[in-house]
């Protein structure tokens, strides 16, 4: 027995081992490498070229989401290459993806042909971007949209009553409980009321709002509105760390007037100081829950002269734009466009002033904190400071519109406050007239501190001329060292305001809607085989359940009578990535683009009689040209 064990077991063990190794053996191809080529070149230009070069087939390290301004879109690019990758239509129809042509997206757009997308905001968990949703405001029509980052598509557009020109948006709290909205251009309250501008000071009102987010679905609903004096509520941010629980908005025109022909640029610049409005969103939510809000046109509105301890004003150098919370959450940075300084506030001092009622004034029930009590320092950054971002190493970067530059300066503490100049440690010129800037994950609790993108308003002469409609410029700047280094010029369509940079691995997309993936809402009108397709007539309504696959539609003939209501559901049954199909009907102003596994529906009236070809618009295969059919309207 003993001998057997010695002689036999090794052989058996080897056989079993061979089998197990064979079972687990897996030799798949490796994915492309993320991150561009890196290395030190001879000259500055050579090193900049190497730093931004992403070899063919390789992937960028970061996503850059630009707001598209009055194009109503979001542009997605890669960093460091700055290559434009895709456009996400949000507030504007976009035939390229069929957005605004199918029933669902058309309904979401609500009849608007455009929006003014300004400030993208990521969902956050613990103050860090979690890569689930992207929010974006419509500055023109009081709306906010949510994009699902699994498929880069808009899932919801929320229109909120009373808000006029929603600019101070979309700033998200550190655990995605709330996203902000605010009135930039005050109008009479409630929304839709008529009052002449001569009654501006009394009848016109601003609104700031907290939009509640469902923690699982991201679904947005109105949490509260606060009626505030008719100033222009501009940019905002959500507090984090010690400032968690507060929302901040800058406001200009605290002169509280609109004089006809008086030029707001003049009348709104008379006072030495404007304000930051600070709101305790938990207290405001509790006040709504406690029945202290008045329902006005479906909105729970809080009046600060009746409900105390929800809002405060902090004085700030006049005509401010950005208010930005440092990664630690302690320092609040406000920039007055017409002052050569940026002001840093200490949230601990702010809390103390509130506790001690250290107020200098009260406006419509909102206490004004004493400036000297809450200010930590004024930093002489330069001319026209607009917006500030952070690197996570104790430095802040402020855009200087007038000076066309970015200033790098040190956050508190300051050993020698009598000489603040020494804390502005570097400055780099940009081309030209920078508005916002963005650093990698720069408004989260843990910025990456390597890249900064300057979003410039003017780009004159730095690209091939395209006539007078000149694009905008975005410049990639390396901030990993002591001195900022310009790496790359990119140009975008009109008109990025703010942008966000997120590490690529935080976003997990799907490229195919899998037939059995129940994490997406089920579409009852999907058909997955030729046998399931059908055409049904019900009175004067003809309903078609169609499928598309390489390279045919089934059915490929639809017969209707003039005046019929036609409903067509098209399912792209492909389960292979990048096998999109289009469905366009000649002369009927219809173009759907259906992604693999997706079903889209279009409803229209067959107003014109005749024969109309339909065809696949999104190139799919060698026989794409043959992918066609006919709509016969008798």
């Amino acid at each position: 027995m003993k001998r057997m064990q010695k002689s036999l077991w090794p052989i058996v063990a080897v056989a079993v081992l061979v089998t197990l190794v064979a079972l687990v053996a897996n030799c798949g191809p490796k994915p492309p490498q993320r991150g561009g080529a890196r290395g030190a070149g001879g000259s500055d230009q050579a090193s900049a070229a190497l730093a931004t070069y992403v070899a063919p087939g390789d992937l960028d390290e970061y996503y850059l989401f630009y707001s598209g301004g009055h194009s109503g879109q979001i542009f997605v690019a890669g960093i460091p290459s700055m290559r434009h990758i895709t456009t996400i239509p949000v507030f504007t129809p976009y035939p390229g993806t069929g957005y605004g042509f199918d029933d669902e997206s058309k309904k979401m757009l609500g009849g608007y042909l455009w929006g003014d997308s300004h400030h993208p905001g990521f969902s956050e968990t613990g103050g860090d971007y979690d890569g689930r949703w992207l929010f974006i405001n419509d500055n023109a029509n009081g709306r906010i949209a949510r994009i699902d980052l699994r498929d880069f598509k808009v899932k919801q557009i929320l229109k909120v009553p009373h808000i006029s020109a929603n600019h101070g948006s979309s700033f998200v709290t550190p655990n995605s409980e709330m996203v902000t909205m605010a009135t930039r251009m005050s109008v009479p309250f409630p929304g839709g009321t008529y009052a002449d501008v001569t009654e501006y000071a009394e009848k016109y009102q601003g609104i700031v709002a907290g939009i509640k987010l469902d923690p699982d679905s991201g679904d947005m609903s109105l949490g509260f509105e606060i009626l505030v004096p008719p100033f222009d509520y501009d940019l905002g941010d959500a507090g984090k760390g010690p400032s968690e629980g507060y929302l901040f908005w800058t406001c200009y025109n605290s002169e509280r007037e609109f004089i006809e022909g008086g030029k707001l640029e003049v009348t709104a610049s008379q006072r030495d100081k404007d304000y930051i409005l600070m709101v305790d969103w938990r207290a405001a939510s509790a006040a709504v829950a406690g029945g202290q809000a008045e329902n006005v046109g479906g909105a729970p509105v809080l009046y600060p002269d009746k409900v105390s301890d929800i809002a405060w004003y902090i004085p700030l150098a006049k005509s401010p734009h950005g208010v930005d919370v440092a990664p630690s959450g302690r320092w609040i940075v406000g920039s007055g466009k017409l002052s050569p300084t940026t002001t840093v506030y200490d949230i601990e001092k702010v809390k103390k002033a509130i506790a001690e009622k250290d107020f200098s004034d009260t406006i419509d029930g909102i206490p004004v904190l004493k400036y000297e009590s809450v200010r930590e320092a004024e930093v002489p950054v330069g001319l026209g400071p607009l917006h500030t971002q952070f690197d996570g190493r104790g430095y802040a970067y402020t855009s200087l519109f007038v000076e066309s530059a970015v200033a790098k300066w040190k956050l508190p503490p300051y050993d020698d406050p009598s000489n603040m100049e020494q804390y502005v440690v570097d400055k780099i010129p940009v081309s030209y007239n920078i508005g916002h800037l963005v650093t990698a994950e720069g408004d989260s609790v843990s910025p990456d501190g390597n890249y900064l993108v300057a979003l410039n308003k003017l780009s004159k002469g730095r690209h091939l001329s395209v006539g007078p409609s000149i694009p905008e410029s975005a410049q990639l700047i390396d901030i990993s060292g002591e001195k900022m280094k310009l790496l790359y010029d990119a140009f975008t369509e009109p008109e990025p305001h703010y942008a966000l940079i997120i590490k690529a691995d935080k976003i997990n997309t799907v490229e195919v809607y899998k037939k059995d993936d129940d994490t997406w809402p089920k579409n009852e009108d999907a058909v997955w085989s030729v046998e399931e397709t059908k055409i049904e007539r019900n009175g004067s309504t003809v309903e078609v359940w169609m499928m598309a696959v390489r390279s045919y539609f089934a059915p490929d003939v639809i017969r209707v009578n003039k005046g019929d209501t036609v409903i067509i559901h098209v399912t792209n049954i492909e389960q292979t990535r990048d096998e999109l199909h289009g469905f366009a009907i000649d002369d009927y102003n219809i173009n759907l683009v259906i992604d693999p596994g997706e079903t889209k529906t279009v409803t229209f009236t067959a107003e014109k009689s005749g024969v109309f070809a339909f065809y696949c618009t999104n190139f799919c295969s060698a026989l794409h040209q043959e992918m066609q059919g006919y709509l016969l309207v008798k």
Partner: protein
Amino acid sequence: MKDYFYGITKKLIQPLSIKSRVVTIVAALILPLSFLAPLWHMTFVAQQYPEGLNLYIYSHALVGGNDGNDLTEINVLNHYIGMRELAPEDFNELKWIPLIIGGLMLLTLRAAAIGTLGSLVDVFVMSSYFGLFSLWSFWYKMNLYGRELDPTAAVKVDPFMPPVFGYELVGQFHVWSYPAAGSYVMTAFGLLLLLAMYLSWRSDPRAPV
């Protein structure tokens, strides 16, 4: 000559030695592992399919890579040249191969329990025949699918034969076809049977079993 056959027969009817039985049991036990892994693996790589399409042939199933979608994709591509759809329900092999593997396992266990060297030889011969027949069947199906193309297909191609073993360029596709883990399990099974036979052959027929 007579003595030679007599000697062989005497060896063959001798009961298996203990070592031999243990090895035979191990062989029988690893055989069902071949259900867990594919027997054959085909990879199709083209410029626009850099990650490749994968087709795994199990004893009981035909499975595409990428959550099964690669099989659909192969069928979508093949419809252009008029090739019949690779539908698992059309492959009888997927029904009888598992049955036979189960039968072989029972026969192997039987040999281990009450068998002689002769019954081991039977199991080995049957397994080899089964293996070769399966390979032929696989080759025949490949040949049939590549030969019987729909004459009305959009793209006319000459009848072709994808590789059963090794590499071939088929149209724009580089195709590799190799045995996979399940086949290695079968091979290990065969080697263990050989080892068991050798151990019994070598052992002393007069020794107590």
